[in-house]
């Protein structure tokens, strides 16, 4: 048995573990993708909810083309935010209940890496459908092609940030029963900058102006979220797993 124990000498305890970080990261990522796709109703609910919310606005307000065009950036971004909030509770809860997270806690690498892999897989399952669906819905809102491109790109940059920020809240509330609304409430204020920047970038594209500013800022927030959010979420998971 080559399993290092707590009683092992310091030199032995830091000996190279059997699996490399990248191998393990990929294993967690693929495992989560597989689990997510097998529970496909959960995954598709987010995308269906996104479409539903976008559909509500023309019905409630007005189907006039010029009005829809004006509303499109905000409506599609709000719908993407709501769809993200709706599916966040799936991120860690099942793994906390069946003990998977406790296994990950014993991995000899920073827990943040494992959570980043999980969050990335969650984005592929719930975020990517939103990004893919957005241009189709934008066309039904009579958005010109140039703005559709910017909208899709801003969602591509923004949705992973939303999910990474949300992973902090999901980790904090993983052990709580029926914390869905609370989870949405604690993470939504943190997500507002992403919403503002994404919707505004699309607005600028619609007005034919330069959109690089907000897109750069969105990219900066994504980098910041990738580097910080998993660390904070790891701290939160340790609390929830207590």
């Amino acid at each position, binding site marked *: 048995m080559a399993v290092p124990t707590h009683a092992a000498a310091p030199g032995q305890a830091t000996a190279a573990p059997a699996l490399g970080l990248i191998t393990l990261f990929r294993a967690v990522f693929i495992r989560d993708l597989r689990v997510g796709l097998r529970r496909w109703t959960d995954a598709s609910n987010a995308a269906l909810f996104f479409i539903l919310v976008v559909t509500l606005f023309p019905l409630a307000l007005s189907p006039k083309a010029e009005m829809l065009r004006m509303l499109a950036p905000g409506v599609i971004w709000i719908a993407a935010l709501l769809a993200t909030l709706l599916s966040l509770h799936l991120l860690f809860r099942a793994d906390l209940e069946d003990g998977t997270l406790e296994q990950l806690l014993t991995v000899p690498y920073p827990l943040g890496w494992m959570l980043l892999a999980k969050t990335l897989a969650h984005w592929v399952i719930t975020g990517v459908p939103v990004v893919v669906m957005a241009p189709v819905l934008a066309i039904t809102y009579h958005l010109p092609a140039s703005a559709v491109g910017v909208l899709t790109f801003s969602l591509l940059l923004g949705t992973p940030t939303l999910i990474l920020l949300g992973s902090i809240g999901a980790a904090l509330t993983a*052990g709580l029963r029926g914390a869905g609304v609370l989870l949405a409430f604690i993470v939504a*204020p943190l997500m507002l900058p992403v919403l503002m920047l994404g919707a505004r970038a699309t*607005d600028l594209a619609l007005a034919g102006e330069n959109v690089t500013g907000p897109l750069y800022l969105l990219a900066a927030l994504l980098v910041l979220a990738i580097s*910080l959010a998993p660390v904070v979420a790891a701290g939160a998971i340790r609390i929830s797993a*207590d």
Partner: protein
Amino acid sequence: MWNWFFKLASPPHFYALAGKLSYWLLVPAILLLAIGTWGGLILAPPDYQQGDAFRIIYVHVPSAYLSMLIYVTMAVAGAIGLIWRIKLAHAVAASCAPIGASFTFAALVTGAVWGKPMWGTYWEWDPRLTAELILLFLYFGYMGLRGAFENLTQADRASAVLAIAGVVNVPIIHFSVIWWASLHQGPTLSKLEAPSISGDMLWPLLTMILAFTLFFLGILAMRVRAEVLEREVQSRWAQDMLRGASPVGVDL
């Protein structure tokens, strides 16, 4: 010195100390409030543009300043509690939240009241008002998360993590809101900065800021005292004190 520090962190000593501290903070706070109110409402001249309406600044600015200061205090206290596992720090963080939310609410309401004569509307999506509103949501989220846990240790640690995540986000929210507003509306309404305020308007403002800060610290001492007692209610010193065996639990 460390001895003193550990003594401070021990609940019975803190309980006794906080009782005296709240008294010594609240008395000067109320005196300064009276002086600042008198200076602001009576001595200071009316503004040449805003008339008497500007006087709400003496409540609005200290509230807005404290709403942010308290959030940072809460996050720092939470971080101290997380890092050094000091329960007292968590008690401080927990006690900050309702006070901070109250000051945020006060800043929003006074801002709205001020907005009516100045801008002609109670609510304008002005960057500062918007950022303040988001801050209120952050406080509510913090209190909601605390309340959701049954285990006190978990509640302390989880809410501390949320407060720290929030404090990192506050500058981002602040700047993105300013940037958002600068694109969204004309530059007519965002002239909130007092252009070089004159001396007889300034000193009451500074007095009020000091008074509000002392008031916050005094109320905080009272709340932390109650929080400590609630957490320690099963302990020997608290039981003794509540039975009246010894008036403050220990003597300082």
